């Protein structure tokens, strides 16, 4: 057994803050305007264009966008709302613009990171070298609810586990990007990336003549190519399907959209069955073999025989077919071990360990509340920190210190003291802002970015991602379930 690593470099807490402008005291970086209030070079044309547009016109365009999203049915259901009630995600007309150079840096960093994460997952379920090397403590793996012993020594095509990764990135300053979160299970939002682009082109075609904007609409083609490249070895022409939990899932539009765009079947668990460790779907012409499943169903619900037995979303026997190598799941079972917030702090070291490279993208400094010192620091600075559940997602179960009341902080303190293992803390990021249409006109609002990285035969990306914007003034939470909106994301061509 590997001992808990004492070799980990003990970084004094104060040095976390050295040289990085992560703390809210500073005015956040504005994507469009520099400190003097002048438009940055990549925004100049847009800035001038925007000044010439009347408020009435922009208002009309906004109404048009909402109407189109509704008619087309680009909507999502929010958990807790009545069934059948749907919302559109607010779409903002001010794009978020990256220069070619900025994107080059981001893309290199993302490819590097995802490559290392895939190596890590392989390692965790096979040779455990990173544990043996004392970089990640063994109990952080084995005691993690996201670790799937069922996956031990199971080989998957090309040793790729996270075929689709959505990496959340924030900016704190010029050239200063941080990875906030790796999403390696069933990341969503890519349909909005494509639909926002289409909407922007429809509303303001003239802008696309003024700018050379790299296209993103071929994402479904890249996705299909990626999924086909991880087919089981003995299959010649793989039958790819998208597995959805069903129409009441909040991302159902996206599941249906991707299946349609790829020209593959959208299936639910009840459409599939397993016989002789092979997966079939029930069609009007009888059973048909399935080779690659792009599943948008969480691990726990995939197979009632292997995981939660109370689920009807999955397929009985799927795990056995998967372990036998007769079907590929994308993403693989057990990828959660790599995107868990308790593993996140180790990613920079993973990159060095597996690739022998310096990480291109920064991690946000993270306090692991399971450690006594980190917990003490966190408890003493709750009003300044963001504290998150290690297994939380969607902006639920988190505390944004500077934005919380005393009572909220004290309430949260109780939870933290009761279960320190479940939390991590990070300095409150001064997320960059981007001008955004709000009730009072155009005002800066915080944004992040979720680019999507596809790993198959090679790693592929479309230039861009989903930019999410927190519409409430001062809010740092961009999740659509918490009232966030989206923006079209432009990567300029040289």
């Amino acid at each position: 057994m590997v001992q808990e690593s004492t070799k980990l470099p003990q970084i004094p807490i104060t040095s976390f803050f050295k040289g990085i402008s992560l703390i809210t005291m500073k005015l956040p970086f504005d994507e469009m305007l520099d400190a003097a209030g002048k438009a940055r070079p990549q925004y100049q044309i847009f800035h001038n264009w925007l000044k010439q547009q009347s408020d009435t016109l922009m208002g009309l365009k906004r109404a048009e966008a909402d109407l189109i999203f509704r008619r087309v049915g680009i909507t999502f259901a929010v958990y807790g709302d009545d069934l059948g009630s749907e919302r559109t995600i607010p779409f903002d007309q001010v794009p978020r613009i990256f220069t070619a150079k900025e994107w080059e840096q981001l893309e290199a960093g993302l490819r590097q990171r995802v490559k290392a994460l895939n190596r890590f997952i392989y390692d965790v379920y096979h040779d455990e070298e990173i544990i043996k090397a004392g970089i990640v403590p063994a109990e952080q793996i084995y005691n993690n609810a996201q670790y799937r012993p069922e996956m031990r020594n199971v080989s998957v095509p090309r040793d790729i586990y996270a075929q689709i990764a959505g990496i959340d990135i924030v900016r704190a300053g010029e050239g200063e990007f941080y990875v906030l979160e790796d999403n390696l299970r069933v990341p969503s939002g890519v349909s909005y990336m494509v639909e926002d682009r289409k909407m922007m082109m429809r509303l303001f075609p003239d802008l696309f003549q003024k700018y050379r904007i790299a296209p993103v609409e071929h994402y479904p083609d890249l996705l299909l190519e990626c999924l086909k490249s991880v087919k089981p070895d003995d299959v010649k022409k793989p039958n790819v399907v998208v597995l959805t939990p069903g129409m009441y899932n909040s991302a159902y539009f996206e599941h249906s959209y991707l299946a349609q765009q790829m020209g593959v079947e959208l299936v639910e668990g009840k459409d599939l069955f397993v016989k002789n460790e092979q997966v079939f779907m029930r069609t009007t012409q009888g059973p048909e073999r399935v080779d690659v499943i792009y599943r948008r169903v969480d691990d726990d619900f995939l197979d009632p025989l292997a995981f939660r037995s109370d689920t009807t979303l999955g397929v009985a026997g799927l795990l056995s077919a998967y372990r036998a190598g007769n079907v590929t799941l994308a993403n693989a079972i057990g990828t959660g071990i790599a995107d868990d917030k308790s593993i996140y702090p180790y990613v920079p070291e993973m990159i060095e360990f597996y690739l022998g490279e310096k990480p291109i993208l920064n991690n946000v400094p993270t306090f692991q509340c399971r450690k006594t010192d980190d917990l003490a620091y966190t408890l003493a600075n709750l009003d300044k920190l963001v504290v998150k559940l290690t297994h939380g997602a969607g902006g639920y179960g988190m505390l944004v210190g500077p934005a919380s009341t005393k009572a909220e902080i004290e309430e949260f303190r109780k939870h933290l003291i009761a279960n320190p293992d479940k939390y991590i803390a990070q300095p409150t990021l001064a997320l960059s802002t981007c001008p955004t249409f709000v009730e009072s006109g155009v005002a800066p609002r915080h944004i992040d970015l979720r680019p999507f990285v596809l790993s198959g035969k090679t790693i592929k990306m479309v230039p861009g991602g989903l930019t999410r914007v927190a519409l409430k003034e001062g809010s740092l939470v961009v999740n659509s379930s918490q009232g966030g909106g989206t923006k079209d994301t432009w990567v300029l061509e040289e």
Partner: protein
Amino acid sequence: MLSRTADCLYWMARYTERAENTARMLDVNHQTSLLPQPKEFLEQSWKKLLTISKLEDAFLSKYDVVTRENVLDFMIYETSNPSSIVSCLYSARENARVIRGKITSEVWETQNTTWLELQRILEARHQSDPSRLLEWVKHRCHLFRGVLHGTMLKNEAFYFISVGTLLERADNTGRILENKYEDQTALKVLNPKKGSDEGTDGNFFDFYHWAALLRSVSAFEIYRQIYSDQVTPKQVAQLLIFNKQMPRSLVCCVNELIPLISEVKNQQSKEIERLLGKLKASLDYSDIDEVFEQGLEEFIEVFLERINHIADEFSNTYLIPLATN
């Protein structure tokens, strides 16, 4: 194609067709209820409308008396009534949403827009004059059909939609005919001097009664064109049962179903082909005199039983996931 997908396509079509036919029936009843007539007959005709759809019990558990307002309310708005127009349009749209990837975006957007517009109509609910709403429902269903034919590939998805439409339509035409014919019988009791195959001369109410029935299946002008004659019950029945050119007639629905089934043929579809063939033969080798000898009511009952048996068989063959081997 996935069985579940086929199921959604089929039900999307059935619910849309049902919404349209319900609107047609209500509109006609509403129009005729404005004519001068015995009060008990009026009540009778609204009651019949519930019987025809086998909804009398469900209605009486919600309302005390059968009045025009209550029936309209129940058949248009009541969400606990699966055959109300609102329920049908909701189900049609929900089914479309599930398989939106299998229909053209135009078809999906038509269904979705219908539902969104209905929300606005419901907010400004004008019960006193349902005609405009019913007109709108018919219009939206026409639009759905037009968009369907104008944009969809003539592939499996299209065939399953068409089968759903035709099975529902055959059922609905049968029920409308049965219902109105019973009305006619009831009327005879009230007005015993007339024989059933006499013309409508001398009794304007009779004329309006049958004209309304024809209008409810968009067949009034067609009747005039074909028969150039007074409206007689026998000819109305002949038109709606046996006319091969009349798109809502029973024989027309059955004839159109046969090639569709052979397009979606699978290993288990022999039985449906046999049942359909038999039904077609029984229509081909019969005529209206024979039907009246047997009794129209009984004839329709048998027809409904057979067409619904075919619908069940269709579900078992294609829509309920096939056996796992």
